[in-house]
């Protein structure tokens, strides 16, 4: 548990660094992929609700620190995202091949919506059209492209490999 926590913390740290310096600049049709969100979804699916929520809180804190944003803003959203995906992974989505895709698509949409609402509540001038019409569809598509490679990477990182059962043919 402790080792998984350390792995998740380091992985999310580098994900945030890569997101703010490299991935954030990749603009395709007005949207850009959200690597941190996709990695968080994979971590939460593989490790459960509490682990997902704590990972979300950590990732959000790093994100807000890195972009000098309002501390707690992204933590709040990613904690909820990590918890929800974790619960889905523990219950309905357990062992389903499509679980990463469904989670990434739903969480990307919900994250954009709740981010918009929170911005409105804090009095920031945001355009719903830009956030939901212009940027969201390409962002969902790009996140879905990232979903399977990221999920398989996280699976390798967080789940121990089973030794292959061997049989010996003789005679």
């Amino acid at each position, binding site marked *: 548990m402790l080792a998984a926590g350390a792995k998740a913390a380091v992985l999310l740290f580098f994900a945030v660094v890569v997101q703010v*310096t490299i991935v954030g600049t990749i603009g395709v049709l007005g949207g850009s992929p959200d690597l941190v969100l996709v990695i968080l979804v994979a971590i939460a699916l593989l490790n459960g609700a509490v682990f997902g929520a704590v990972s979300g809180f950590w990732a959000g804190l790093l994100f807000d*620190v890195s972009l000098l944003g*309002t501390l707690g803003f992204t933590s709040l959203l990613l904690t909820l995202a990590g918890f929800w995906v974790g619960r889905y992974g523990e219950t309905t989505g357990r062992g389903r091949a499509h679980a990463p895709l469904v989670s990434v698509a739903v969480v990307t949409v919900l994250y954009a919506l709740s981010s918009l609402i929170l911005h409105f509540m804090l009095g920031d001038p945001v355009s719903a059209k830009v956030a939901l019409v212009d940027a969201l569809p390409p962002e969902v598509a790009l996140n879905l492209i990232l979903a399977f490679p990221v999920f398989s990477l996280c699976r390798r990182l*967080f789940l121990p490999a089973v030794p292959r059962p061997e049989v010996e043919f003789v005679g």
Partner: protein
Amino acid sequence: MPRKRSPRVAALGSPTRRTVAPSYSSRQTGPLKRRLIVAVLLLASLAMITVYFRETPSGALHDFQSVAASAMRPFEIGAQRVSRPFRDAYGWAANLVHAKSENERLHQELEDVRSQVIVSADALRENKRLKDLLKYQRGATFPEDFPRNRAVAASVMSNPAGEFEQKIIISAGSSDGVRLYDAVVTGRGLVGHVSKVLRDQSRVTMLTDQESAVTARAVKTGAIGVLRHGEGSALILDRVPKEKSVVQNDIVVTAGRGQGRLGSFFPGNIPVGYVNSVGQTDVDLYQDVQVRPFVDFSDLDSVLVLVPKKR
């Protein structure tokens, strides 16, 4: 014919590495404990938002953010250095698409500028003489009142986080002489203004952000409007009355003054972009002026924070 048989080892199942099924730690924790942990995290987030909003920029959370951001800085610099060649290659390939039309436009602009230089040189001399005679006091203007040797050069640490947060982090802060609302430029033109200052870093709100609005004027006709973000990387020169003339390819610079009671953060004459298209409809009160910025906001490496002569 006797078959040569030797012991062999075979692996069952697929050749890919198999992993065990996930065992969720939170399934072992009771639902009450699980909910308690999440509630604590959510409350902590809400508390941070509240305290961060209420405290002064020298408060504890701001200090923590400053220190933590400084700790992350070397990693961000490293990531940028690694990605730089790839971004350059992408930028080079992407620019090739527009190279021909851009070249034609620049040639046309160069011819116009050459003829204007001669006229401007005479006007400048006359202007200076008349100003001296009248002891005329004007507002801060770029570049006269913002010498290059006083400007603070800074590298861009972080790029915009999303479509509706067009803000970047730069590697200069209050310790370098950067102040809130200072204008930020590149060699090409205006980038935005400083919207948050920490000791070693600052946040710059770019012109493409929805919070940004700059009073700007078209150089040839003098039409003044409010420049704000438009679709994609384009900008809109808003509130230009229909009776004012605006021509295509005219250069747009900051007006150096506000509209109404509000002042402007920006000194006058900072180049912003050129007029891409002008249109108007019968129902609109103002013209629809699209401005293409000189600065490529998606590919910023370094910027200059303008510091006035007198501060």
